């Protein structure tokens, strides 16, 4: 059964499909924001399948093994994340301490990106890698404190099932943590204003610059899956899982709302510089997250 969970539902295939669609929503909505037409719904799928048929060029100077393994590390982490999260959300199956596992897996994705970029032997990728790891250091602290708020609300339980049964968004600290969480997700998905590791006009794609063919396809698939699981994680963390048809409908709507907020923020902001981003997360968001956590502890 574990193989089915991992590969089919709610793991690889299901998440990949939903992720491609979520990514398409992002591309289509951004296009509408910008008075463009935007791609058809299957664009991400054909992009991905086209990449599978292309040659993967490995740069001669790169650390070849790490260069090839890094995308797989990130990809495996995302699949594991999707399976654990999806099992808890859709199938009601829990693992002990799954919330901690999810936090760990989410930072492992960034580590994979960092490793792949550093192994590319390219200056653009090197700067992208350094930015990726700086961003991880910046957003991880806030993200953990944000996740702790629903944990506190559910009675100090690190089981995902218990968190899913409480709706943290109804309290003030919950709303505050949710907004902070959105910014962390924005950074984790590398969307504007935090698309620093890729920064097309500065680093020409940064971390992915040397990748091509199948390996690039794996990066794209990883990114697509992240588009599905991170907003899903945030929305179920704060909204919980509804009961009955109406409850599930509300869940879907809340997920789409989360996604749309991310897309709107992406489209109305320019890219920030790395020092401003670090300042913002460490000096502004971290104290706010701490305040939200303290408020939650006192029942606010």
């Amino acid at each position, binding site marked *: 059964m574990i193989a089915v969970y991992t590969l089919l539902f709610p793991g690889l295939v299901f998440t990949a499909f939903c992720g491609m669609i979520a990514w398409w929503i992002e591309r289509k909505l951004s296009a509408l924001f*910008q008075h463009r037409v935007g791609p058809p719904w299957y664009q991400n799928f054909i992009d991905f399948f086209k990449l599978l048929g292309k040659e993967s060029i490995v740069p001669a100077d790169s650390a070849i093994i790490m260069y090839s393994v890094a995308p797989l590390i990130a990809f495996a982490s995302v699949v594991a994340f999707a399976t654990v999260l999806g099992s808890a959300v859709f199938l009601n199956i829990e693992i002990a301490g799954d919330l901690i596992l999810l936090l760990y897996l989410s930072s492992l994705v960034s580590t994979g990106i960092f490793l792949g970029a550093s192994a590319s032997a390219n200056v653009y990728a*090197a700067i992208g890698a350094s930015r990726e790891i700086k961003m991880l250091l910046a957003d991880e602290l806030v993200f953990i404190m944000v996740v702790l708020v629903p944990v506190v609300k559910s009675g100090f339980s690190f089981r995902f099932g218990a968190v899913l049964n409480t709706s943290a968004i109804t309290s003030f600290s919950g709303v505050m943590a949710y907004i902070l969480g959105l910014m962390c997700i924005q950074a984790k998905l590398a969307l504007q204003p935090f698309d620093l590791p890729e920064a097309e006009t500065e680093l020409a794609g940064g971390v992915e610059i040397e990748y091509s063919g199948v390996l690039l396809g794996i990066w794209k698939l990883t990114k697509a899956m992240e588009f599905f699981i991170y907003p899903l994680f945030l929305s179920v963390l704060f909204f919980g899982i509804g009961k009955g048809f109406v409850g599930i409908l509300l869940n879907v709507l809340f997920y789409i709302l989360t996604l749309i907020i991310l897309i709107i923020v992406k489209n109305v902001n320019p*890219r920030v510089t790395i020092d401003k981003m670090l300042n913002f997360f460490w000096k502004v968001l971290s104290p706010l997250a701490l305040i939200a956590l303290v408020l939650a502890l006192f029942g606010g």
Partner: protein
Amino acid sequence: MSEDFNLPVGPFHPLLEEAEYFKITLDGEKVKEIEMETGWMHRAIEKLSESNTFDQTIFLVERICGICSASHPFACVNALEDIGNVEIPLRARYIRSLIGEMERIHSHLLWLGLAGHFIGYDTLWMWAWKYREPILEVIELITGNRNHYGVFRIGGVRKDYDISLNTRVNEVMDMLEKKLSMVAKAAMDDPVLKSRLCGVGILTKEDAINYCATGPTARASGVAIDVRKDEPYAAYDLLDFDIIVREEGDVFAKTVVRILEMLESIKMVRQIIERLRKISGPIYNDVAEIPAGEGIGRHEAPRGEVFHYIRSDGSNRPIRHKIRAPSYVNIPTYEVSCPGMNLSDVMITLASVDPCYCCTERSVKLFDSKGTEIAQNLLELSQRKTDRLIDELGESELWKLL
């Protein structure tokens, strides 16, 4: 990352629309030094010009740049008329200014969009270019082309302005004025945008003067130079407009200068089409020949002052044609405005002077290691290299490499 390393920006990079090479020395993400290398877009226009007749030269220099395609012929006809002391009819002077100002609007909108793209603000990019489209459409109605208008000739203009277009031009100007005010307000109130642009890439007034910066680059640093006011040509002495000057010298000031200049240009276009209604007469004076002598022509292009020098020996071809584009003096200001800043800030600073590389690159000389000139003919050089490779590898191997 305490060790310095070099980040090549270019010759081909998403930041640059054209080929150009910047070598940036980085310490972490801090830029220590920047070196520029030009010559990637060289097309030998000056040399070509010497083999063309005066009438052909005007069309040739129009091809120097796709964006400021009125600026070079404008300066070129100014230079030719300077040699022959040619008088231009009033109507032609107004039409010339009209084209010049229309071009300034669409060029600044293009820059605004690109600047948005360079700082990752793609929405601004698409919006600015959407508003640029009606301007190009109006230019097409007036001249017949979206770019490369081909309206300039010695002694006047080639194509008359049709008064019945006034309604459409006014409509577009109204629309643009509204949208520009909206963009200006959005840009000036946005805290993220402000934090990206304010205090970034500062060019002080002294440096602007030392580097001979021109156009919006100089005016954003508090140097009030504008050929349109300083040495009026065409109809600029008859028009009412202001020079926009800001003191800060950062990228934000350059943005503001360009946005406000567009509003000034809109004002001028309105005045011109209103006056063209009353002025009738020929649109050109016939010029039989250009006498021997030399002349200079200046024009305030969207990016700064374009300078053309032409020498004639009384024949129908220039014997020397020297062109100095505004980016040629604006690009070296990077040397003082870039070091010490964050890499992301340098990228927008590189775009802030609105560099136009194919305008800049007029001539290149190749020297070998001993300092002797190798060849002036790049085609010949390329053929020689191909021949050498065929000798070394054999033709079939070479094809495989390609």
